[in-house]
């Protein structure tokens, strides 16, 4: 693996982590929204 590939790997890894976290937040938000709907009924 040449040097520049490491550079891109690092940037890609960074965004993978951030996108994974956003995904986790989205799922949590959906679950909480469902609970709020349940309560409203």
């Amino acid at each position, binding site marked *: 693996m040449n*040097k520049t590939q490491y550079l891109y790997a690092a940037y890609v*890894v960074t965004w993978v982590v*951030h996108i994974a976290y956003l995904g986790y937040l989205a799922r949590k938000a959906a679950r909480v929204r469902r609970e709020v709907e349940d309560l409203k009924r």
Partner: protein
Amino acid sequence: MKTAFIVFSLIVFALLTNGLYQALVAAPTEATMGDVQRIFYYHVPSAWTAFLCFIANFVASIIYLAKRNQKLDAFAFASAEVGVVFCTVVLLTGPIWARPVWGIWWTWDARLTSTLVLWLIYVSYLVLRRYATGGQTATIAAALAVFGFIDVVFVYMAIRWFRTQHPQPVVGGGQGSGLHPAMLHALLMNFLAFAMYAGLLLWLRYKLERTSHLVEEAHAARAIAGDAR
């Protein structure tokens, strides 16, 4: 509220994009390390952002222990989580940078090792949060946060004095010291971008936690009221 959020998100997105441009294009190529050095513009700002989050967690936890305000607890939880996310980035980008530059994945350099222990401490905080039962999770977690933060000082010193026996490669050659102005600019722009992004994440996570709290309280209130419908 919604509009403020959308506007803020757009600003953050613009800052991040600008940061990316600064890091990959605008900043000059480093003499000895070459393009790989550009990882620096993501690695270091992420570290600073993580530290900011952990400081926020410490302050929120201490005030929580004094005031017992649930909002502070939600904020503490959020800041620890976001801090761990950024700390993870630091620990992943560090070795990816080290490998091509020094031929090793890891070194017991004081900074990198302290970051690892920091990560361990706050992950243990998150695990405690997840596995604690009963209404006083917030208090126990806040106590742990105080321990963790105080420990950080000891961690750094301990690693400097008792681990770094062999000459170690210094990560980054010292931030800001003797840094080319265009590089400093790229570094600071990315720090601003990531710090703002962390703020955005904090906001989202905090709101989520608060809503969760309120849902729980509503459930409890209903149970007490005996569901008189």
